[in-house]
């Protein structure tokens, strides 16, 4: 895999506050890395250092082999960046703003015009092209920011909360756009929407207090959930003790937790050993016993839960 972004031991201190504390990773072509982490974790600060806006206290950033501090221009030419909150010159129109960005990126004349109009089409800005940016809705402002970032078809895209504050339709559109671009780029995005990691990212990274506490695929992240691959069931007319007794004999079952009773209904959750897949065996057992099953389904576990576990001080899982 072609390495596009290489970050080593990145650290940033604002006086006594250590915002980023020894972060290292690489991102390759066709990878979409999702940054997760609580507010103030250091996601934006990391991105600001990757894009050359902030100088790291220590550590290095290489963009396509160019050190961002020694060869900032070469590195920045390869980067597209949507800063947090999508800042833009408010008194400009999307048309004049994107033309300005295009010129700064070295486009002139007919190429400039074509590039701007192609970008405008990609992010659907046609309807507001000549309206001043300050009068645009949040969604359109975000799109202008996105347009500005992708205008020069960069090899690397850094997007700080690209879907923040968008309605579900716009979120969907932006995600589709990002997914389409992922084929030929390396993308780093940050988000507070955990499902987005599933929808978009090939890799997830959780940062807490400036440190990387998780780096893996979204599936691996899910696997960290204590509820991952557990089985939830509701069965009628069976003594819970009998139920417990039989289910515990199923291969791979570690623990059964009763969740509640409602008349003769018993609700329970079955935990597997080592997150293994036990649903078929449970189903088999239930059928053998001839129990009246109301519900029986697997739980993938909630990312929220994993997120909380990984980012709150008491870490109970490793």
């Amino acid at each position, binding site marked *: 895999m072609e390495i596009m972004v290489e970050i080593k031991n990145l650290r940033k201190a604002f006086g006594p506050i250590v915002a980023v504390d020894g972060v290292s990773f690489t991102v390759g072509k066709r990878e979409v890395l999702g940054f997760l982490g609580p507010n103030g974790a250091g996601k934006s600060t990391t991105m600001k250092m990757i894009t050359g806006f902030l100088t790291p206290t220590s550590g290095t950033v290489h963009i396509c082999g160019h050190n961002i501090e020694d060869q900032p221009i070469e590195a920045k030419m390869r980067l597209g960046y949507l800063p947090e909150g999508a*800042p833009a010159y408010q008194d400009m129109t999307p048309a004049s703003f994107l033309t300005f960005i295009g010129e700064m990126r070295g486009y002139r004349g007919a190429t400039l015009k074509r590039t701007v109009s192609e970008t405008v089409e990609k992010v659907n800005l046609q309807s507001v092209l000549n309206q001043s940016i300050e009068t645009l809705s949040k969604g359109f402002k975000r799109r202008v920011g996105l347009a500005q970032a992708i205008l020069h078809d960069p090899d690397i895209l850094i997007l700080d909360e690209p879907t923040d504050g968008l309605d579900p339709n716009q979120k969907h559109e932006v995600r589709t756009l990002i997914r389409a671009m992922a084929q030929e780029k390396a993308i780093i995005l940050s988000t507070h929407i955990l499902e987005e990691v599933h929808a978009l990212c090939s890799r997830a990274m959780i940062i807490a207090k400036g440190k990387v506490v998780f780096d893996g695929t979204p599936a691996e992240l899910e696997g960290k959930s204590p509820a991952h691959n557990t089985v939830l069931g509701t069965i009628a007319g069976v003594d819970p003790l009998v139920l417990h007794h039989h289910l515990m004999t199923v291969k791979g079952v570690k623990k059964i937790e009763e969740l509640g009773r409602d008349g003769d209904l018993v609700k329970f959750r079955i935990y597997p050993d080592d997150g293994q897949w036990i649903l078929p065996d449970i189903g088999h057992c239930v059928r053998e016993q001839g129990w009246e099953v109301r519900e029986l389904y697997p739980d993938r576990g909630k990312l929220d839960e994993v997120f909380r576990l990984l980012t709150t001080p008491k870490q109970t899982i490793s």
Partner: protein
Amino acid sequence: MGRIGVIFQRELAGYFATPIAAVFIVIFLLLSGAFTFYLGNYFARGQADLVPFFDFHPWLYLVLIPALAMRLWAEERRSGTIELLLTLPVTMWEAVAGKFLAAWCFTGIALALTFPMWLTVNLLGDPDNGVILASYLGSLLMAGGFLAIGSCISALTKNQVIAFVVSVVISLGFILSGFPLVLELFSGWAPQFLLNAISSFSFLTHFQSISKGVLDLRDILFFLSLIAFWLFATATVIDMKKAES
């Protein structure tokens, strides 16, 4: 057109896209006219020159230029566009120069719009147009000096009111340092070379010597190097303070 040119164009267009241009130019023209005619006794002097007009320029600039300069960087910081600008493939120097030159060019436009003053004096009499041209040049250079100071102060804070007030005070220092009144404060005890140094930093002295029509290279160099110094300071300050949002 290089990247400085692109930034220059955007900035200059920005002045005219907002009411800033109109307000600034109108006030500049009104005040320079009022000063010249009422305070400067333009007609009563019975002389065909623009001395009273140019005499008031330092005081006019003292208030108007910081008002123009205060938003240069403070606004970029406040709105977060500084992050956008500085992550484009552009050097700090290009960004600082592009923005400064646009503001300077804008004051140049305002200054050029005072041409009716020059027309009037040519209609009424037979002035030395060489002196007038030199005065215009001196005025432009002085405006650049004030702007460069304002640019640096504007980079120090995102609060435009603070930027304005501090710029005015510093600019005032650069005007007053040539005044006998100020120099007398030092004259009793400070060594002569210090006195000379202080008075040599006066915008007033250099401007007045240029507007006498003597284009001394030293006066021009004074303003140009002062501009270079403050722009360098601007770049340094931005680099130091850009982290603070």
